[in-house]
């Protein structure tokens, strides 16, 4: 009468660790007082900026891979990407945000980044 459902693994701990990361069981509720609201807004804005920055970076890498860029162009891209990354580091410090915090959980779509 009982279902013959099996769950078989030789590495319980390893799977517990990984699956819990995915299920992300930490509460996501945000406490809405004014300090947190500010931080919450900064987080949202910076998350989107990070997304764009990463997209641009990836795009740049693809172009370099494609071999269509001159040395000067690579230099130019490098400068810009460097400045962007440093600026983001600054902003993260100012708002006391860590990399892991700059992500959005989109429900069925998973995480933004």
């Amino acid at each position, binding site marked *: 009468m009982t279902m013959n459902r099996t769950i078989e693994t030789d590495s319980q701990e*390893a*799977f517990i660790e*990984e699956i819990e990361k*995915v299920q992300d069981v930490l509460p996501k509720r945000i406490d809405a007082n004014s300090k947190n609201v500010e931080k919450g807004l900064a987080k949202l804005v910076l998350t989107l900026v990070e997304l764009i920055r990463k997209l641009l*970076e990836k795009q740049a*890498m693809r172009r370099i891979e*494609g071999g269509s860029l001159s040395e000067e162009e690579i230099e130019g891209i490098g400068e810009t990407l460097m400045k962007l990354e440093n600026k983001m580091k600054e902003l993260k410090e100012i708002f006391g945000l860590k990399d892991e915090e700059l992500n959005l959980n989109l429900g069925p779509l*998973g995480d933004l*980044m």
Partner: protein
Amino acid sequence: MKVYAYGIINSNPEGIVLPIPFKEGTNSGMDEPLSGLGEASVYNIPYRDIAVIVSELSDEAKEKTDTYILEHERIVERLMESFTVLPMRFLTVFNTKEDLLGMAELYYEDFKDNLARLYNKVEFGMKVIWPADTIKQRIVDVYHKPEGDGLASYSQSHKTKHNVSISTESPAKTFVKEKFQEHIIEKEFQEEANRCIQVVDDYFNRIACEKKLKRLQTESLLLNASYLVDKDRQNEFKQAFEQLKNAPSDLKFLFSGPWPCYNFINLTKKPSSVDYFNTEDMLNRLLAQQGFAQERNSV
């Protein structure tokens, strides 16, 4: 009275055509009564030729619903023994019976389609952990050449037209080189993951009817796969896992099943809210354009 829904079944037992669906309040034709969340009796609410399996949710029980996932699963699996059942997501509660019937009407075609498609089938789960750090290190060792320009050697080995000269170094160039290295390593890592997943999937591909593969949910969790398997081929499927398990590899496996077909419900109806639909669609397209889309569903 609020009703908690466990799943959807055909109210005519498979293979036998009966003109009258189960009477409401009966125990759905099962031999013994089932009790559900908060000890409430499980019964069915029929709609046309399907039925929603429910139990009533008292206010006290509602407070504790978060502890009930095991009960929920127990009931769904008990139903699975006797019927093809479309399992409801945990904590699906309706304010009134009328709301529930409204839902049944809205999704009727979807439910019928899914019940037919999933007839006599079960789901198996396959999770794989791979040594991500070792793999990455191996890739890094190949591409990171301390004496030369990693970029140039990559170009050579992949025969691209690109040739970065190191005639004039600059912080920007160094930055780009490092980023590019990361990019190439990541790319190779992804490709290695795909190769590995392909090998694992090949064990099950020909036995399963459908599959859903989630790749690299974390760096180490290489694969989270769900396979839809005909009940009659269960043992064949389990044997395939035995073969995979015994094949020499540095992979770790978590094999589970049979489960109700949670991962293979296809609903064509979307909630009426326009915002919900557009945002998801838009984001999917944006991410796909930039190559960020993960293969959440695979053919």
